[in-house]
């Protein structure tokens, strides 16, 4: 939009979709499919990041280096934001250090809830900061993103929904047990009938719990599935809890959690 057209159509500018912000090696924007604001009715939004080829950014467990996404909300009175949700990551090496995160495009779903009496012309802001790395260097990025909550598009609604489908969810009948010896962590999965745990890629969501170098691979052992993992060098005493994410192409990613008794 040229400066002149902004001047001619100030109202249009106020309601238009805010332009993506480029910083470092990624571009970020805040999108929604919502076209109406109703007090108390949640709105589905997403923080969309497009990362330049050859660079990656990080998951909630970034692995041996990296930095997780940081979001600071600047919302009008009464508006609340839910937790930022993370689609299942991929694993990569940054030099010699294993890490988990994203390449290309990723959308982090966030549910917003307006207060009663909220206006569709409310302006929401979020300060987002991230880190992108490649083998040679790391470059941080940050952006102040703006959202007009009723200025959504069907395209964005679709994109956010697809991203939400990539956020790991629990599965009925999928249970995790964890045991520990001096040098290793034993993982045992109870699964629903017909579930083949060997076909899934396994990511530890809990930081500093498991060794990140070797992939975790489940093998059938009787009625259950078993895997062994090294301990993370920085594990602070015996594991008290562990969350695993399981991902497989074409399937909804899964999450399974264990807590020590």
């Amino acid at each position: 939009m040229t400066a002149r057209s902004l001047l001619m159509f100030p109202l249009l500018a106020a309601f238009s979709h805010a332009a993506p912000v480029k910083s470092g090696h990624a571009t970020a924007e805040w999108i929604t499919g919502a076209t109406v604001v109703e007090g108390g009715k949640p709105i589905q939004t997403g923080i969309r990041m497009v990362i330049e080829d050859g660079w990656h950014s990080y998951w909630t467990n970034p692995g041996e280096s990296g930095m997780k996404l940081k979001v600071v909300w600047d919302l009008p009175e009464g508006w609340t934001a839910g937790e930022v949700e993370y689609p299942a990551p991929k694993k990569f090496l940054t030099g010699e250090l294993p890490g988990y995160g994203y390449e290309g495009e990723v959308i982090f779903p966030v549910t917003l809830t307006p207060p009663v009496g909220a206006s569709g012309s409310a302006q929401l802001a979020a300060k987002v900061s991230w880190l992108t790395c490649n083998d040679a260097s790391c470059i941080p990025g940050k952006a102040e993103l703006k959202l007009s909550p009723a200025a959504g598009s069907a395209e964005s609604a679709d994109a956010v929904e697809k991203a939400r489908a990539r956020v790991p969810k629990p599965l009925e009948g999928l249970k995790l047990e964890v045991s520990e010896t001096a040098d290793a962590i034993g993982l045992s999965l109870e699964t629903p009938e017909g579930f083949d745990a060997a076909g899934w890629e396994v990511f530890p969501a809990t930081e500093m719990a498991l060794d990140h170098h070797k992939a975790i691979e489940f093998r059938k052992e009787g009625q259950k599935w078993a895997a062994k993992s090294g301990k993370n060098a920085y594990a602070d005493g015996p594991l008290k809890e562990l969350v695993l994410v399981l991902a497989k192409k074409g399937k909804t990613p899964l999450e399974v959690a264990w807590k020590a008794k």
Partner: protein
Amino acid sequence: MKLLAYATLAGAFALASVTAKEVGKAAPAFSVQDTAGKAVSLADHKGKTVVLEWVNFGCPFVKKHYGSGNMQKLQETYTGKDVVWLTVSSANKDKADAFVEGSKLAETAKDQGSKATAILIDGDGKLGKSYGAEVTPHMMIIDKEGKLAYRGEIDSLHTTDQSDVAKADKTFANALDNVLAGKPVENASNKPYGCGVKY
């Protein structure tokens, strides 16, 4: 038993030659050239408290601590307390995109106002690997008896944000204060944050 376990796991545990569990043991000996071409060894500083600070001036986490003046202040404060502060670059000398040669590194450090005792060029990575230096910055403290007393983060907020320096718990500085006072170090071994060392 543990040595055997590590020896049989190729590659992946190359960086684990000094593991979290080895804080409390004798710090590995070394002799490395500084930016002036002079050989610096741990033995030269026997009887003194020594700090090792892994650096890469291109790393945003290092920039956070130099840009805010935090690292230089720590260097000045503690060299003033007779601590030997050695800044180390373990970037592979054969990696053109990572290696910074001695005089250039010295110049950058000087421009940054570094108050380090010396800057070591660990181009073959031996020093870094013997201490398990993983990222920049990675902070290590060797006590007067030559034991590794601390290995870990510089502070508690794992971000690239300069404004977090004032808010963070000063993990490394607290550890150094305790070492100098002959007190036990809390949290002597913890996970650092930074950019991977370019071995």
